[in-house]
């Protein structure tokens, strides 16, 4: 299976592990991740105002590429996924925006709104299947107690993201269980870490991050797992007593893909 891959800016810099292990795991699962050539930064956040056009064009370019190649568009970073999916939704529901975006791009191939967008987790669930992954696990993470951290961007707004029940999601937990580890429930798994507020108010970011890792810790977790580089940064920067790792790293580890091949 081939997919078009949008890595995003952070995965090329501060979150290279997230990218590297996503690629290695995909290889182990028989998925070819073709990086979209000349992709541009998604902008990190979706600007919800309906008259905001220019900031959304990079997403539309990526969507158009996937449509052209008749392949699913896959992202790993929560933020990229959120921005691209929300942009696609606006493109398909707001005709004035669609017209403006098409005019701006003025490209030979006009995006028709038909790209299929998958977060890497959704790709694992819907295109590979957790049962299939379970079969391919060579080093099960037995005994590990994992607190999955969704944050906000993967699940919300639910009317657009439609990944899972936004208040009682199971996709991340199911993956962890497929890898042989125990998934620990804690109530703050879908609350905000503070996000970009780290630049505006370090105190607020600290307060939010602390409430997340304290909740995970008191639930008995030994590790927090995330898909978002900013979540990981905030939790670690604000002294999480638990290690915070990317989900792709755990996946690669369980699949036995972490150490082999050249890094």
């Amino acid at each position, binding site marked *: 299976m081939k997919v078009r891959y949008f890595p995003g800016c952070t995965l090329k810099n501060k979150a290279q592990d997230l990218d590297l292990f996503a690629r290695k795991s995909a290889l182990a699962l028989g998925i070819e991740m073709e990086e979209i050539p000349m992709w541009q930064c998604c902008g990190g956040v979706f600007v919800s105002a309906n008259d905001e056009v220019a900031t959304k064009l990079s997403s539309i370019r990526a969507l158009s590429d996937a449509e052209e190649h008749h392949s699913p568009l896959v992202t790993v970073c929560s933020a990229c996924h959120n921005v691209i999916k929300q942009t696609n939704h606006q493109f398909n529901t707001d005709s004035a925006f669609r017209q403006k975006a098409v005019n701006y791009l003025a490209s030979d191939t006009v995006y028709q709104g038909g790209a299929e967008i998958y977060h890497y987790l959704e790709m694992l669930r819907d295109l590979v299947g957790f049962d299939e992954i379970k079969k391919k696990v060579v080093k099960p993470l037995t005994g590990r107690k994992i607190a999955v951290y969704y944050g906000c961007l993967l699940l919300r707004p*639910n*009317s657009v993201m439609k990944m899972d*029940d936004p*208040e*009682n999601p199971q996709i991340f937990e199911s993956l962890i269980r497929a890898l042989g580890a125990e998934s620990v*429930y804690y*109530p*703050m798994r879908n*609350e905000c870490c503070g996000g970009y507020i780290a630049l505006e108010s370090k105190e607020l970011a600290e307060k939010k991050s602390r409430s997340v890792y304290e*909740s995970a810790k*008191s639930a008995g977790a030994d590790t927090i797992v995330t898909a978002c580089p900013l979540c990981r940064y905030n939790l670690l920067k604000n002294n999480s007593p638990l290690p915070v790792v990317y989900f792709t790293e755990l996946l690669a580890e369980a699949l036995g893909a972490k150490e082999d091949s050249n890094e």
Partner: protein
Amino acid sequence: MQRIGVFVCWCGSNIAGTVDVHAVAEALKTEPGVVFSTDYQYMCSQAGQNIIKDAIRDYRLTGVVVCSCSPRMHEVTFRKTASQAGLNPYMVEIANIREQCSWVHKDVPTGTEKAIILGRAAVAKVNLNAPLTPGESLVIKRALVIGGGIAGIQTALDIADAGFPVDIVEKQPTIGGKMAQLDKTFPTLDCAACILTPKMVDAAQNENIRILSYSEVEKVGGFVGNFEVTIRKKARYVKEDICTGCGACVEKCPMKKVPNEFNLGMDNRRAVYIPFAQAVPKVATIDPNYCNMLKNGKCGLCARVCTAGAIDYTQKDELITEKYGAIVVATGYNPISLDKFDEFAYNQSKDVISSLEFERLTNAAGPTAGKLVRPSDGKHPHTIVFVQCVGSRCDACAEKGKEYCSKICCMYTAKHAMLTRDKYPDTEVYVFYIDVRTPGKNFDEFYRRAVEEYGVHYVKGMVGKVSPEGDTLKVQASDLISGKQLHIDADLVVLAAAIEPDASARPLATMLTASMDTNDFFTEAHPKLRPVESPTAGVFLSGACQGPKDIPETVSQAGAAASKVIGLLVKDKLTTNPCVAQSNELMCNGCSSCELVCPYGAITYIDKEFRMPDRSIQIRRVAQVNPAVCQGCGACTVACPSGAMDLNGFKSEQIIAEVDAICR
């Protein structure tokens, strides 16, 4: 040629506000057959009706067109008027220039133009009308009540008291419904069981009432006065007439881990069970999903201990077919599933419960014998948070919950809060509300007592998130009056879940051809003036199947539905609608298309002798309509490929004349 009179009603300003009624009367004067045309302020008034009567006599009218409100409103009125003046009532046609014209248009020219067109169509139809005479049909003097909660029980008791036999069909093993699960009732705080169970016993002992418990309606045929209903009596693997309800089988049953639905799964029952002590009928039922004997033939203990010999593992579902003159729907409600509201952690913590679960937790016959403790650890809760409007008053674009107010939650939450404070004064009680709605006799006084005498903390605001952390439930909420975000460590959180119609209501509505709204509540024939009748003749509504209701309202409506049923059953005969289908035997080719589409089974085929032009005799198969059964829906006229089937009063040529008049 007909001599037609046209009567244009102003309906005060309802019609005259957007329709130039004089212009309409004037324009219709020149239509073919019209010999008289006038307008009047209120045609339905005595004076208005006299205008019609006088005109019929003075102008020797053979047909009447009234341009007024919907025929659903006053067709009967004007038919009576015509009949009093000696005209066949079916020579009257209504042009609906109110609901379908003046109310939907804003400017006079458009409204007037459309009113003239509608009037013209009605005149064209009357030109082809022929006098019709209604027939008669017998009334079966027996009623069916579907649902055995307080609504169904009360309706059945009232009908039975008037001397008519009633069957109650209840899908659970016992009657009693939701009320049997409640602890106390607001605003008087009498014990629900104390006032309900005597009624259950009355129903069981009343010789006019037959209770078909553990049964469901499978099929409904026929029509008002003469329904034929098939009821599935599910196998309970216990002979109902022999079982004494002694409970020996229950005691001995080794299958002890069956979630007890009566206590909402908060404790367990056996595979053979009697739902609660005062169940009616007090008869055991074996749950085939859990019984080892039924699943793999290994057990049989209950049969061995039953001294009456009532256990019968070979019992099969039984189909009963019975005829009824009237049917009452009393299918009730259920709290919605809280799965989509997990911001309140209902699926994450045993100590987040629904209000109905709270009822069981405080009920002396409940899983804790009435002691209010946390389901998780059996400890006494010192702080309880009640959340109102969970899933009620939600906008459709929020993609979860119901749009309506569930009506009963404000009052039962006040009751829960008050009773908690009364029994456990060391427990702090918070109620988060959006609005407190207490329109009912002694309702607001009751709520104020909870606040003023019992010290319940009512907080204007909503809970945003419940986080189970260790032993406590961290409640994050807003207090809109003080402008603060509150953080409360609670021991128990109670969610006032919205209520919705029972899931059996939708398929039942299809069987009854009774209409429903988008929320699956049954629709009444008129929201104000015919609140207990469904638009389908002979089908009546009782209780929460029609909309959220508390017990006093349900009981009033149950009585009202019963009185409507009695009013129907006291009649020996009903006049039938003469607008029924009729087959032209010369054109009928015997294809059976009409028979197959008829929803009432009104069409049969007979072999009939025809004399041909050459005087030979030919036997042909032709359709015949039973006018007593036909409801005039017209499905057969559309299905008939040869045009042999036609509907009296709505003949194809009449409809085409109307269309022609509109397109002219």
